[in-house]
């Protein structure tokens, strides 16, 4: 059944929550474009042509996700402006490109599939639960897509960890310190380091409650997803708990 939201005329751009969705979408589009850049770069360092092809395919899927989010924005009457150079996103893609520079495909998968996807999957799912009409559907459908390719990467990462757990866990921890600390700051209740450079005006986080969301909830759900992924890979819970406990707030 179509929801009221979708049947409404374009006047919905005057909806008091439109500017909140605009910023939520801006973060999502930025994340997708970063993911697309990451996969494109990964394709360049894959020795196996089949893997390179898959990475290129993923890059295309992420670009399509970005386009779908932009279209969802237009549908509710807002222009979604992304910024892959926003300070947090720049650090996140910097961590990925560091792995690319070292031709470390496993490092790349850890950053993109374990860390960034945990955040994407958990936050899209939360947003899908509360966003009205077609907007909620877009977030839900893209969350399902992200889950699918994360599952694919898990098989590769699990095999890698099983071959040498200590080496794998050391690498994961190094990347955790860089990437998860940045994500934790991005989702912290207070923006201690100033504007994120993605939100249109002031930071959207304090307004999220108006659409039944909160930064704390998005951070919590992302950390939960991340821990579940680490559990599935077989990392000891007492180690990953300490990692989470040590993140900045």
């Amino acid at each position, binding site marked *: 059944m179509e929801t009221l939201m979708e049947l409404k005329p374009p006047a919905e751009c005057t909806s008091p929550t439109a500017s909140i969705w605009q910023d939520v979408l801006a973060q999502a589009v930025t994340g997708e474009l970063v993911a697309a850049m990451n996969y494109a770069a990964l394709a360049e360092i894959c020795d196996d042509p089949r893997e390179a092809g898959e990475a290129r395919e993923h890059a295309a899927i992420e670009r399509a996700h970005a386009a779908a989010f932009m279209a969802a924005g237009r549908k509710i009457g807002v222009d979604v402006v992304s910024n892959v150079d926003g300070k947090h996103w720049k650090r996140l893609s910097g961590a990925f490109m560091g792995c690319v520079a070292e031709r470390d495909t496993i490092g790349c998968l850890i950053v993109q599939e374990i860390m960034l996807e945990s955040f994407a999957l958990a936050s899209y799912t939360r947003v899908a639960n509360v966003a009205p009409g077609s907007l909620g559907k877009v977030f839900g459908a893209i969350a399902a897509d992200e889950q699918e390719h994360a599952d694919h990467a898990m098989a590769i990462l699990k095999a890698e960890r099983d071959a040498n757990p200590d080496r794998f866990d050391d690498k994961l921890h190094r990347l955790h310190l860089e990437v998860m600390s940045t994500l934790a700051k991005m989702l912290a209740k207070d923006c201690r380091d100033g504007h994120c450079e993605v939100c249109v005006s002031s930071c959207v986080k304090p307004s999220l409650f108006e659409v039944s969301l909160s930064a704390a909830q998005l951070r919590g759900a992302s950390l939960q997803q991340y821990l579940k992924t680490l559990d599935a890979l*077989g990392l000891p819970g007492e180690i990953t708990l300490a990692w989470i406990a040590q993140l900045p707030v």
Partner: protein
Amino acid sequence: MDCTAAGVAPRVDFALVGHPESWKAAADVFSALRGPDRIPLPDDELKDILPWIPPRAVCRVDVKSIADAEAHGLYIDSFIPPDRLDAACVRENLTRVRAAAAYAIKAGARIVSLGGFSSILIEGNFDQLPPRRSTIFTTGNTLTVAFIVQGIEKMCAQEGRSLRRSTLLVVGATGDVGSGCVRCLAPKVRRVLLHARNVERLRRLAAELEAEGVDVEIGTDLGSFSEEADVVVCAASLPSPSLLLGRVAPDALVCDAGYPKNLSPDAATSRATVFFGGLGQMTGGLKFDPDLQGILNRHPFPDVVHGCLLEGIALTLEGRFESFSRGRGAITPPHVMEIETIAARHGIVLAPFFNAAGPVTLQ
């Protein structure tokens, strides 16, 4: 700690499933995990983060028996938020306990102690736990009862009180722990007062005791008993320390065995002797990795642990991998004697006495 080869998961003989007793207790654990160089997590941040953490091991636990046995295990926290232990959150909390149990099973634990509310949520229905082949579960409540009873007897002896001439009040009398305490202590006292909310269950327990010749009175209102108690066991499943005792003798001996504690901080009567019961001490050796000694078990004496958790350790050291305590009020004096003998053989003994103010000294 142990010399496990790099990358090989260390052996897990037992698992202890618990939950934070208070936000302060949780904050202490997180501060320790953050280490001395990071500021402690502000309380509001901890309350935002903890409920999202999937149940997992907090530390490894290595124990040694005085009889030369040793065992390795995990302390697994279900991360039930300390202010959400109430009935309204039963479903959510049961999910957490099941996830903690699944974690223990996956880790390969042979026996799992379901501490505090973990077993209360399961309600003696072990079928609610995830499927397993070689992991068995115990509520640990029989050893808890043993330590409560030992504590009462030792305190009476130390303070020159006559247990035989005393009137015993058990709060939460129809529960698994409470009914075990009643069965052990009733033959040793003059009169027994049973308190809980459900009158039918009180009547059933009273009838069982009367058939044994015990002088019993039941009450759903603590103020309604015909006489004052001079020995009190608090074993009600209260989500927070909220119990006000009402009518008890001014110099009563009160054992608070709750986890979390039963007694409200306002319950203290100046002359009563209050001690925390159901706790034991590992005298052979107890090590945590990371070293959360005194933080996870925040008691004024070292190596003190809840009886329910110690039961799993005692059974492991004894090599008896069986569901010794299954819940549903089935604890009897012979069971209690058996588990306390096993525990003692491995150096697991009654903990020194203390309460919220610190060690309890002789009056």
